[in-house]
């Protein structure tokens, strides 16, 4: 892994102060993003995938608050900057948002404003990160739309989002994320709302853009198929923690954390016999306010060791090293 490390997230912790008590959305999340490589982040709803993305961009909504950790842009270089230490409203942070780190969003239906043309919304992003004139920014926006494979971009630029199909809208979203020419892209479930054919096209597009621009891609999904197809490394998250980190082939060949194994079992198999029941993970994600003691996965875990798993939190992963945060990994 000789590629340059673009972003190093260390011990990121985010709390939501609710009336019912503090919800610990992220509890010490660490991972690295490398130029030209894809990190998959996988987990069930509510495990903190999207909060991670927003924390890096410093756009966590109230009552969410980053209570600890660092997110180092260009770590180890003279340019190193801790995003968590920068004022989120500052000009510098705004320049990083969209300029260094682009966000591709989940819902192509609702993530674009219906009140403005797609051109207006892309041009705004272009001009936020360059000194281009209006006309030049428009040309650039058309160029971006062509780059993401939108046919007849010089016409589509004046369309409103509701006049485009879901697939085209998601491409518009990608064009918008690219408008500031970022070298890091965070894609938050970019294909969840799309049909499978469109999904494949969008994933192809992301791969091509990554190759052309040597982009560090962070791909958030709950789809193991997307992970297998796209990623180099995978971080599995559960209740605000990274519970397993591994190169993608190792993860599928030899998952180490019981939660990863359960997730992989839940993927429907083409070899299954008809009417075979799909495997599920027992129980549900606990309410964030009622977090189980010890390892938060222990009530749903098949390998639960009483007296151990419910007593203490298993040791966290060392960033960049494959492993699982589980007592099965630790000799008793």
């Amino acid at each position, binding site marked *: 892994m000789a590629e340059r490390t673009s972003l190093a997230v260390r011990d990121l912790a985010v709390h939501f102060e609710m009336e019912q008590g503090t919800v610990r959305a992220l509890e010490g999340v660490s991972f690295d993003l490398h130029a030209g490589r894809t990190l998959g982040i996988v987990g069930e709803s509510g495990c903190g995938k999207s909060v991670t993305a927003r924390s890096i961009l410093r756009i966590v909504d109230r009552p969410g608050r980053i209570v600890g950790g660092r997110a180092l842009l260009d770590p180890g270089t003279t340019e190193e900057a801790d995003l968590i230490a920068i004022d989120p409203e500052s000009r510098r942070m705004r320049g990083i948002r969209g300029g260094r780190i682009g966000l591709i969003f989940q819902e192509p239906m*609702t993530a674009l404003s219906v009140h403005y043309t797609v051109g207006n919304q892309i041009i705004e992003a272009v001009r936020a990160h360059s000194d281009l004139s209006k006309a030049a920014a428009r040309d650039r926006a058309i160029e971006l739309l062509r780059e993401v494979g939108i046919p007849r971009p010089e016409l589509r630029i004046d369309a409103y989002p509701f006049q485009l199909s879901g697939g085209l809208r998601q491409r518009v979203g990608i064009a*918008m994320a690219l408008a500031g020419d970022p070298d890091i892209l965070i894609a938050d479930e970019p294909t969840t709302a799309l049909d499978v054919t469109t999904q494949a096209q969008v994933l192809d597009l992301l791969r091509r853009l990554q190759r052309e621009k040597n982009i560090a891609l962070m791909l958030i999904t709950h789809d193991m198929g997307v992970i297998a197809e796209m990623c180099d490394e995978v971080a599995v998250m559960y209740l605000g923690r990274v519970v397993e980190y591994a190169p993608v082939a190792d993860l599928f060949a030899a998952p180490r954390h019981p939660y990863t194994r359960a997730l992989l079992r839940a993927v429907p198999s083409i070899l299954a016999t008809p009417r075979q029941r799909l495997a599920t993970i027992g129980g549900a994600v606990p309410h964030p306010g009622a977090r189980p003691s010890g390892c938060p996965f222990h009530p749903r875990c098949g390998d639960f060791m009483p007296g151990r798993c419910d007593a203490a939190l298993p040791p966290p992963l060392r960033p960049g090293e494959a492993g699982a945060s589980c007592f099965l990994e630790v000799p008793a």
Partner: protein
Amino acid sequence: MLSYLLQRLGLAVVTCIFISALTFVIIRLPPGDFVDAYIANLTASGSSVSQEQAAAMRVEYGLDRPVIVQYARWMGRVLQGDFGVSMVWRRPVSEVIGDRLWLTMVVSLAALFLTWAIALPIGIYSAVRQYSIGDYVFTTLGFIGLAVPNFLLALILMYLGFRYLGLSVGGLFSPEYVQAPWSWGRVWDLMKHLPLPAAVLALAGTAQLIRIMRANLLDELRRPYVVTARAKGISERRVVLKYPVRAALNPFASSIAYLFPYLVSGSIVVSLVLGLPTVGPLLLQALVAQDMFLAGAIVLLLGVMTVIGTLISDLLLMWIDPRIRLEGRA
């Protein structure tokens, strides 16, 4: 877009016709017809009218013809600006209403703009800084504004204005301008008198609109497109003003339609207290005196104005929301 416009216009015309029919029914509701009322009036003042004269008058006014024909003739006259004769004032209705209609519109529009000018920024502030001290202060003031009867506020403001600011309160004109013909001096005098009634009339609507704006904007601020806009790296002020505020503006545009009649009919007591020469008090007098031509004319005019207000708010919505403009969906 054009078809949507034409459809709205057509509906407006149809609505106006229904309003006029209803008005005609209202005018004819009291027992007896206009001639009966006229004779009763004359008898009360000492003169008398013979049966022949009465019959002649009925023919002259077309009261012997079928209802439909009467309605058509009445509409024909209304379209020429002839609303009949007010029995209380013994003058043509159009003369009685006269300036009052324009003054009503001036006061209402002033109140409307004041409502917007106050409610829009406060609503935005309250939503963006939800649960801040400022939000609580404005919320409290807003609820007080909703709860205080307007006429009470009018009295208090009149007292304060007169006692401490030495303003000439009451009415829309200083005594020397009340009967004067229109001149720049009179317009300026009107301007000086306008703030107080406009403020009183705007109060309740403002409180309501702040709540609406706040609730709408809070909804919109949670939408994914706001995250998208923030992720682009544009400033928070621009994010909020360009995207969610624009989306939350729809109810503002709609409010034109209902605020106008509310300002006119809801302001009768305030107008009486403040001595405003507007349509509201006139309508009250006409109804008390069963002056049906006058009442009918006012009802008709208010109805038509409400329709026009609705049309304007539809046009504004088209301007704000491209989905309506391009797909003709309301």
